[in-house]
């Protein structure tokens, strides 16, 4: 993938967007997401997770880089490929994994599943299964910040496939009309299920999709967590200053299928291998960390910690009981 376009914009160079310790923390989060998703894939194979399960493997740099631009009270909302976003928001991997297995210890007490998890406490507003719906909802989160007159920002994620939905453009219009503090983040992983971007979008540069509404935008190397952070800082600062929405196109790639049941016949094995070998976000970050003097032992320690957290999450997700049968009737309505 081409070197980041973010360099050409105002602001820090990507490599300056994080210091040693911050990058190490970001690396740890990306690693957590990677290992968590690998484990989720395993549990799916064992029949412990069912239904739709969309893994985030390959795209970790996007959400981790963006999360490093936020402060408490900001909001995050995304689609059904949401496990990485939840972990980036510091939600407990145990609660996320237990929701995947449909257990009482899950964030939605087993009633939501992979695509429907939330944590108001952590500023994570889901987890939405209807392609594109979260874009209007995320605009509404930004609206609530505007209404309250605070400086919080809504990060609203969606794929390049969702970017063709009508309500996405309705939201662009509303957001710039009202100058709402929302960063629209297109995670362009090049395939909307089995349809490549070339076959689904007449727009060749998705970062220009906000131009008719006067929305500033940037195209970013979404495989490079430093580039993501650098671009994210510009976008978030724009929103916090009350200047309205910002559009970021993150050029990224998913290594796994659209969901667990995807045979992935629409792309070659070689293409996936090349992306993994040349652009992997963990490899890139690791190289920079080594250059900053982080030792092999330090990275190994981090790796062990992550493995232990994921193993504990998987264990919790299997040990947690199924929800009580009486739960089927709860939470339909708030009792007034």
């Amino acid at each position, binding site marked *: 993938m081409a070197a980041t376009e973010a360099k050409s914009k105002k602001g820090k160079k990507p490599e300056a967007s994080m210091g040693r310790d911050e990058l190490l923390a970001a690396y740890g989060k990306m690693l957590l997401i990677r290992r968590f998703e690998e484990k989720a894939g395993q549990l799916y194979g064992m029949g412990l997770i069912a239904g739709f399960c969309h893994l985030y493997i390959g795209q970790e740099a996007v959400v981790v880089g963006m999360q490093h631009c936020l402060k408490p009270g900001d*909001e995050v*909302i995304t689609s059904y490929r949401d496990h990485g976003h939840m972990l980036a928001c510091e939600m407990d991997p145990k609660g996320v994994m237990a929701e995947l297995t449909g257990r009482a210890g*899950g*964030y*939605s*007490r*087993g*009633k*939501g599943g992979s695509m*429907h*998890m*939330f*944590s*108001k406490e952590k500023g994570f*507003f*889901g*987890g*939405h*299964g*209807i392609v594109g*719906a979260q*874009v*209007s*909802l*995320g*605009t*509404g*989160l*930004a*609206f*609530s910040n505007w*209404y309250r007159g605070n400086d919080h920002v809504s990060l609203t994620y969606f794929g390049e496939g969702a970017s063709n939905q*009508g*309500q996405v453009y*309705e*939201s662009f*219009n*509303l957001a710039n*009309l009202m100058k709402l503090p929302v960063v629209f983040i297109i995670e362009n992983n090049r395939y909307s299920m089995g349809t490549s971007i070339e076959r689904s979008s007449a727009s060749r540069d998705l970062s220009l999709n906000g131009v008719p509404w006067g929305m500033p935008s940037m195209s970013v190397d979404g495989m490079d967590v430093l580039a993501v952070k650098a671009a994210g800082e510009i976008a978030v600062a724009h929103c916090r200053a009350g200047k309205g929405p910002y559009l970021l196109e993150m050029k990224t790639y998913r290594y796994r299928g659209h969901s667990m049941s995807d045979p992935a016949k629409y792309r070659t094995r070689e293409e996936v291998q090349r992306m993994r070998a040349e652009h992997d976000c963990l490899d890139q970050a690791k190289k920079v960390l080594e250059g900053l003097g982080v030792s092999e032992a330090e990275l190994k320690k981090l790796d062990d910690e992550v493995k232990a957290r994921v193993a504990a999450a998987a264990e919790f997700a299997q040990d947690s009981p199924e929800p009580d049968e009486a739960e089927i009737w*709860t*939470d*339909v*309505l*708030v009792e*007034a």
Partner: protein
Amino acid sequence: MAVDILMPALSPTMTEGKLARWLKQPGDQVKSGDVIAEIETDKATMEVEAVDEGVLSKILVPEGTEGVAVNAVIGVMNADDTAPAPAPKAAPAAAKAAPAPVAAHHAPATVAELAEPEWGETKPMTVREALREAMTLEMRADENVFLMGEEVAQYQGAYKISQGMLDEFGPRRVIDTPITEHGFTGMAVGAAMNGLKPIVEFMTFNFAMQAIDQIINSAAKTLYMSGGQMGCPIVFRGPNGAAARVGAQHSQCYASWYAHCPGLKVVAPWSAADAKGLMRAAIRDPNPVIFLENEILYGHTFDCPVSEDFVLPIGKAKIERAGADVTIIAFSIMVDVAMKAAEALEAQGISAEVINLRTIRPLDIETIVQSVKKTSRVVSVEEGWPFAGIGAEIAMTVVEHCFDWLDAPPARVAGLDVPMPYAANLEKLALPQPDWVVAAVKKLF
């Protein structure tokens, strides 16, 4: 030749208006397109433009006159011409027929029993004023409540429900949106998930179909999917059902569509008291509430409690008229039809009890069952289509809860199972009339 100037209809549901001002006087030369008069309705002030050229000869209705019926002769042009006036063409005849079904509902309902006895003093109020007052009171009481929708602010509301609210609350809380139902509905739902309490006005519920995904999949289901974390306190309101002569895409009842879905409450007021009391309850409710209004009822006057605290519970029906022989169950404007049918039946020796549902979901099963146990016969009346309609739900509810008390199968009266036709005669045929209800009741004996 002399030409009559007729009182024009300025909206599909207008039946009368005030002749506010004449801008031309007898003897004045008038060109086609000149503004000759101003007319006020309860929705707006509109200018009347001359269609014909010539001289204004006579003014028959002086300015300031209220309650001038549509199609009444208000002035005459070119009276001194000797040429004979042409025979009226088809248009006036059709125009005369059009308001008939509307006019039939238009008499102010000031029956004492309509008011809420426990709430004390009442005053006459239109449904439009009741809705506005309810929203205004709740917005004064709770900073998190705001109104958004198309033309709600500067235009003062497409149906003038929000008239004056922009002045009081400002553009932050009374928000004009672009024509973008899917987008602004999703935006409002997102704001509700973050703790605000939006009132979303749809210019009509027909347009809410553009946004029904956000209403069902996001607003109604998220509380459950989040294990109780993510509530959505929001009111979706606007006119529902048939107005008058606006064709199939603008004349449809959505009661059964929304009532089908767990996670929503569905309210359908009839009187001004219903509108005011239930709107306040809907805004305070922590759940998404579908609030189905009716354009024809907006201008109807009812006695409404004046108490500052007046509010009605969602989920409670009201017996509008007590009776012994049959239970007629209706909601929204069909309560008018049910009440007229009950009067007609009374004259024929049949005592009908009329239940105004007020809330469709949760349905007040207790009130329905108690009534049917007393009367042993039940007829539902709705404007929507019969198939999988509210009538079907009522019939099944009665069968499940009090089958042994029934002396006859439950019956339903509904709109005809066709898209709404435009032609005046066909439209009238498509919507339930009191005599349909009378016929349905008499079949049960």
